[in-house]
C-alpha cells in the first residue's frame, strides 16, 4: 500500500461521506445554539430552569425543521455575558440595559429581540439599628453610601436624590464609595447605607436580617423609613421614570447578527420559546419560586416580594419589545455617557437601527404566538410600566413621546 494510494482512497472516502450528507439535506437541519442567561436575578432563574426542563426551545426549533442542540450558560452578571457575546461563545444572551448599551456603543453587532427579567429592584438599605429614618437624615449626617459606581444602581441613587432634593449627592455632601454586591450583603462597617439589588436585598432584610430597606428604586419607602413601608416617596412622581420609580430597569435578550442572518428561524423559535415560558410562569409565584430557588436560596415568603416585582411575572405575560423599554435604555445611556462610561453615545436612533433588521423576525414570532396580546394592550395607559408600539412598528416610534429629545 503506497502512501499515495492511501491518500487517494481516503479522499474518496471523505467525498463519499460528504456526498451522502449532502444527499440527506432535506432531513432535519442540525444546529447548536448557546444561550447566556443570568439566573441570579429574579425570575431569570425560574425561566432558565423552565427552558432546561421543558426543552421549549428545542420544541419550537423542531417546528421550523431544526434538530437543535441548546446549551444554556449561567452568568453572574452582564459583564461576562458581554465578553461571551464578543468572543462568540454565545449567540443569544441576556443583558441589562446598561451592559447592552455598552456593547452597542462599541459597535458590536447585536440586536435586542425580547424582554426578559425586568423591573429588577434596587434599594437603599441601612443597618437594622440605624438611627436614619429618611433621606434628610442621610443629608444631615453627610452620610457615606456604598454603591456600584457606574452601574444602573448608581443611576438609581443619583436619580433618587435628584427627584427628592433637586441636587446631586455630591452637592448635598453625601459620599459615594465603590462597593461590590457581595461586600454589600455583609453590611460592612464604615458606611451608613448600601444599595443591593433584588433578590439579595430581600435576603438581607428577611433572612439574614442585617439590613432594612429605607427607600426602593420603585420610589416607595421601606420599613426603615418613617413614612412607613409602601408609602410613595414625596419626590418620586417627579422622576422621569415614574410610574416605574426613580429608574426603570430592563433586561433584554440580544442576538448576534450572524445567527439572525444565517438562521432567522432559530431566532423566531427562541422568542416563541421564551414567550411560552413567560406565559407559563406568569403570576404563578409558587412555581417560579420552586424552579428558581436553587439560585434564590430563600424561603418562599422571603422571596415573594422580589418575585412579585418581576415584570414578566406580574405585569406582562408577553415578551415583545416596546418603545417604552427602549426609552429606559436610552435614558440610561445618557447618564452613562456623562459618567464617561460609554465610548460613543447611544441614542434613540442608534437603538432603532439595531432593531430594524430584526423587526420582521419579531413580527413573525408575534403572529405565530397567535398575535397575543391585541394591539391596544401595547398602547394602554395607566400601567405600572412604560410600553408603547412594539418593535416591528418602528415607523410609529417617537422619542418625544418619552421626553427624550
Amino acid at each position, binding site marked *: 500500500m503506497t502512501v499515495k494510494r492511501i491518500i487517494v482512497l481516503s479522499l474518496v472516502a471523505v467525498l463519499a461521506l460528504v456526498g451522502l450528507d449532502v444527499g440527506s439535506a432535506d432531513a432535519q437541519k442540525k444546529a447548536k445554539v448557546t444561550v447566556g442567561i443570568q439566573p441570579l436575578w429574579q425570575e431569570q432563574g425560574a425561566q432558565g430552569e423552565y427552558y432546561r426542563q421543558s426543552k421549549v426551545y428545542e420544541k419550537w426549533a423542531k417546528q421550523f425543521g431544526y434538530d437543535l442542540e441548546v446549551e444554556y450558560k449561567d452568568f453572574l452578571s452582564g*459583564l461576562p455575558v*458581554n465578553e461571551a457575546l*464578543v*468572543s462568540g461563545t454565545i449567540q443569544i444572551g441576556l443583558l441589562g440595559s446598561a*451592559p447592552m448599551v*455598552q*456593547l452597542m456603543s*462599541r*459597535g*458590536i*453587532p447585536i440586536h435586542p429581540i425580547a424582554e426578559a427579567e425586568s423591573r429588577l429592584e434596587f434599594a437603599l438599605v441601612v443597618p437594622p439599628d440605624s438611627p436614619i429614618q429618611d433621606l434628610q437624615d442621610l443629608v444631615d449626617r453627610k452620610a457615606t453610601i456604598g454603591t456600584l*459606581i*457606574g*452601574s444602573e444602581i448608581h443611576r438609581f441613587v443619583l436619580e433618587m436624590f435628584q427627584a427628592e432634593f433637586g441636587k446631586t449627592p455630591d452637592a448635598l455632601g453625601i459620599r*459615594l*464609595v*465603590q462597593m461590590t454586591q457581595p*461586600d454589600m450583603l455583609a453590611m*460592612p462597617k464604615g458606611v451608613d447605607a448600601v444599595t443591593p439589588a433584588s433578590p439579595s436585598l430581600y435576603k438581607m432584610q428577611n433572612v439574614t436580617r442585617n439590613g432594612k430597606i429605607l427607600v426602593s428604586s420603585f420610589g416607595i419607602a421601606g420599613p426603615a423609613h418613617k413614612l412607613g413601608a409602601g408609602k410613595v416617596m414625596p419626590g418620586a412622581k417627579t422622576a422621569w421614570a415614574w410610574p416605574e420609580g426613580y429608574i426603570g430597569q430592563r433586561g433584554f435578550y440580544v442576538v448576534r447578527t450572524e445567527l439572525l442572518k444565517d438562521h432567522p428561524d432559530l431566532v423566531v423559535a427562541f422568542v416563541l420559546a421564551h414567550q411560552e415560558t413567560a406565559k407559563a410562569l406568569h403570576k404563578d409565584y409558587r412555581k417560579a419560586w420552586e424552579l428558581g430557588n436553587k439560585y434564590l436560596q430563600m424561603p418562599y415568603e422571603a422571596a415573594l416580594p422580589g418575585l412579585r416585582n418581576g415584570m414578566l411575572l406580574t405585569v406582562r405575560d408577553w415578551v415583545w419589545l416596546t418603545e417604552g423599554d427602549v426609552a429606559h435604555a436610552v435614558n440610561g445611556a445618557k447618564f452613562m455617557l456623562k*459618567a*464617561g*462610561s460609554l*465610548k460613543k453615545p447611544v441614542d434613540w436612533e442608534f437603538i432603532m437601527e439595531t432593531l430594524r433588521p430584526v423587526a420582521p423576525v419579531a413580527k413573525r414570532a408575534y403572529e405565530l404566538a397567535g398575535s397575543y396580546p391585541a394591539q391596544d394592550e401595547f398602547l394602554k395607559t395607566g400601567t405600572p410600566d412604560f410600553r408603547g408600539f412594539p418593535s416591528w412598528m418602528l415607523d410609529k416610534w417617537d422619542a418625544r413621546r418619552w421626553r427624550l429629545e
Partner: protein
Amino acid sequence: MRASARSLAWRLALPLAAVIAWFGLSRVLTSPTARMMFPPPEAIYDALVRLSTTTGLYGIPMLGAHMLDSLWRLGLGFGAATAVGVPLGFAIGYFRIAERCLDPLVQILRPISPIAWIPITLTWFGVGTPTVVFVVFYGALFPIVLNTIGGVKGINRLYLRAALTCGYGPFAILRKVVLPAALPAILTGLRIGLGVGWMSIIAAELVGTRSGLGYMISEARFHLDIESIVVGMLAIGLLGLLTDRGVRWLQATLVPWHGKL
C-alpha cells in the same frame, strides 16, 4: 561605545517590530469585534491620555496614582518577604536543627499559590492594603527563602576551610564568609521573588482593593473598557521592568565579581 549602541539596537529590534506589526494589523482588522479583541494603537493612546489626566473617571483617581499605590504595596510586601526570608533561609541552610524543624513547613506551604490565599486573607483583613501586602509577601517569600538556602548550602567548602585555618570561629565565618558567598544566590532569589510579587499583586488587587493597577483593570473591565485594560497591562509591564532593573543594578554593584572567575 559603538558596541553598546549596537546592543541597544538589538534590544529594541523585537519590541519595535511588534509595534509595527500591531499598527499594520490594526489597519486590517477593522470590525468592531476585532477592535475589541485587538485594540488599535491610537485607541490605546487615547485611553492612556484619558487615564493619566482625568480624575474621577468611574470615581477613581488617575493612572499615576494607581501606579504609585501598586508600587508601594509591592515595596511593603517585598520588603517584608526579604526581611523574613533571608534570615530564615540562612537559618535553614546553616543550622541543621533549623532545617529539621522548619524545612517541612516550607515545603508544604511552597506549592500553594499566593492567589489561592486571597479569599481567606480577605476574611482576615478585609478589603484593603493589608490583604494585598500579605499576598505579595507570601508570593515573594518562598523564592527568597529557597534561593538563600541554596546559596548557603552551595558555598564552596574550601572557603570555609580557608577561613577556619585562618583562625575564625563559626559565627565570624557566618558573617564574613557565608553571607558574602551566598549573596549572589540571595540576590537571584530577590529577583525571582520580585517577579512573583508582581504577579501576585495584580491578582490580589483585582478583588482586594479600591486602588492600584489591578483594581483599575477590574474597573475598566466592568465598563467594557478594553483599551484601559491594555494601558493597565502596559503600566504593569513597565513597572515590572523598572523594578527588575533595580535589582539587577543591585546585583552589579554588590556582587560585581559573580559569574567571572
